[in-house]
């Protein structure tokens, strides 16, 4: 982990309609890392990802990827740089088969034989997709659709994967399973990830570095292990009661960053 970070966001400001959803966010992701951005509903996490992947244009600030400034570029240009966005809520192509969904993940690639190898790799990590490869994606269960969305993202052979709440609406068991696979993908295939989550515990267990976002700002950041030990994170994101001698009530506590 040397040299310039793979992805660097500087003082990004972005509007969601009339609302300023991101108010000056800076963060960086090193190659090979998993970086997680935690935050509640409406903190601006999804807007941050959409601004990076070019679906939304920033008002101010810069996004640089691999040394080049990419903010405001057309989404398909950004995808062909190797940035893939796995959207929230498992946005698959419902009437296309699993196989066709995967092929579309490699839409910007031309190297056919390598694409087929990557398809096999996706099937290795998600065997259920191999079983269902000719089935329409809309008929898969929620968890399988999430796996398909991740697999489809992998088909780009991305340099970085932006994951928007992969745990959303899944059973705890499935969340465990999917996060275990994400961890393996990072270790075995070296996939760099930026992971946006509300489920702080599982995200911090997986990630190397974490950022905490509240109403459009980064309020805290650091190594995932350190964040996990932080009293604020424990109280507000992990929901642990401290057994302190004064045993303050949770609602009495003030966040130290306010």
């Amino acid at each position, binding site marked *: 982990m040397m040299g310039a970070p793979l992805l660097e966001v500087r003082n990004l400001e972005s509007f969601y309609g009339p609302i300023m959803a991101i108010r000056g966010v800076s963060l960086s992701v090193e190659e090979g890392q998993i970086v997680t951005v935690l935050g509640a509903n409406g903190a601006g996490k999804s807007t941050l990802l959409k601004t990076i992947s070019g679906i939304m244009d920033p008002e101010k600030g810069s996004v640089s990827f691999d040394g080049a400034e990419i903010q405001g570029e057309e989404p*398909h240009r950004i995808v062909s740089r190797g940035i893939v*966005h796995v959207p929230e809520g498992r946005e698959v192509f419902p009437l296309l088969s699993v196989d066709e969904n995967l092929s579309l993940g490699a839409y910007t690639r031309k190297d056919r034989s390598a694409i087929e190898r990557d398809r096999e790799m996706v099937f290795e990590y998600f065997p259920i997709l191999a079983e269902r490869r000719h089935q329409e994606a809309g008929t898969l269960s929620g968890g399988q659709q999430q796996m398909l969305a991740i697999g489809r993202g992998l088909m780009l052979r991305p340099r970085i994967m932006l994951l928007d709440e992969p745990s959303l609406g899944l059973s705890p068991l499935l969340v465990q399973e999917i996060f275990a696979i994400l961890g393996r993908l990072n270790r075995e295939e070296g996939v760099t990830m930026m992971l946006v989550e509300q489920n702080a515990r599982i995200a911090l267990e997986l990630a190397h570095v974490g950022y905490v976002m509240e109403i459009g700002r980064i309020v805290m950041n650091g190594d995932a292990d350190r964040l996990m030990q932080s009293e604020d994170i424990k109280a507000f994101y992990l929901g642990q009661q401290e057994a302190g001698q004064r045993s303050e009530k949770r609602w009495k506590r003030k966040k130290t960053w306010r």
Partner: protein
Amino acid sequence: MDGVQLLVSGLANGCVYGLIALGFVLIYKATEAVNFAQGDFMMLGAFVTLGLTNAEYLHLPFWIAAPLAILIMAFFGYLLDLLILRHLFGQSQTAVVILTIALGFVIRFVAGVIWGHEPQTLESPLAFGDVSLGGVVLGMADVAVIVVTVLLTWSLYQFFQRTKLGLAMQAASQNQMAAYFMGIPVKRVQGLIWGLSGATAAVAGILFASKGAIDPNAGLLGIKAFAAAVIGGFGSLPGALAGGLIVGVIEPFAARYLAAGYSQIAPYALLLAVLVFRPHGLFSQVRTKKV
């Protein structure tokens, strides 16, 4: 025997409706707007072919004029999207609908100015004589229409299933946001779909003009094609074609066996029945999103 003849001429009419309905559905699936000028696209395609091939105009051989007209109409559709419709991106669907209705008026007017308002006949080699099959006399034009429609449908199907662009078009129409995330240039793909629907309309126009005279108001039969698209299910390509065939077949039989006043409303009566009993159409592809 009589029945077979009615059926074939009904099917031939139905193919034309079906091809126009196909255009409706292509645009609707891609952009979620209805192109009410689709019938006028068909009329324009017919007149462009006529202008290229008839003796009093350019007098090109038909087999050059027809592909050329299809290309011109494809280009017309693409340009229309590029120059006008793309700028309505983000506006309400109503804006697009009103715009296409107005566009229909403009196309009708312009065609009238260029080619006159009198009915004219396309000098088409598809339109010669009758064929007789085992005692049944069929119009050559009707047979040609059916054959061409089957071929076109088959190639469209192959295009959507087998090519990367076809797959991307399906993807962009099923989930636009996700298509962006895959790196599909969605706006350009939508422009190409407008081009494709222009080309389909041109084929429909050539076939329609091979069956009889055309005038600038011929595009109004787009309304029947619209009914066909709704009957078939507005999101389904095979449904559009089937809806066209159903409407086409009902017409001659209703004209034959029902009293004069009722036959004309038969397709719309069916439309109402479908809307009441199967509101998504007969062949709809509806898949609700899992949460």
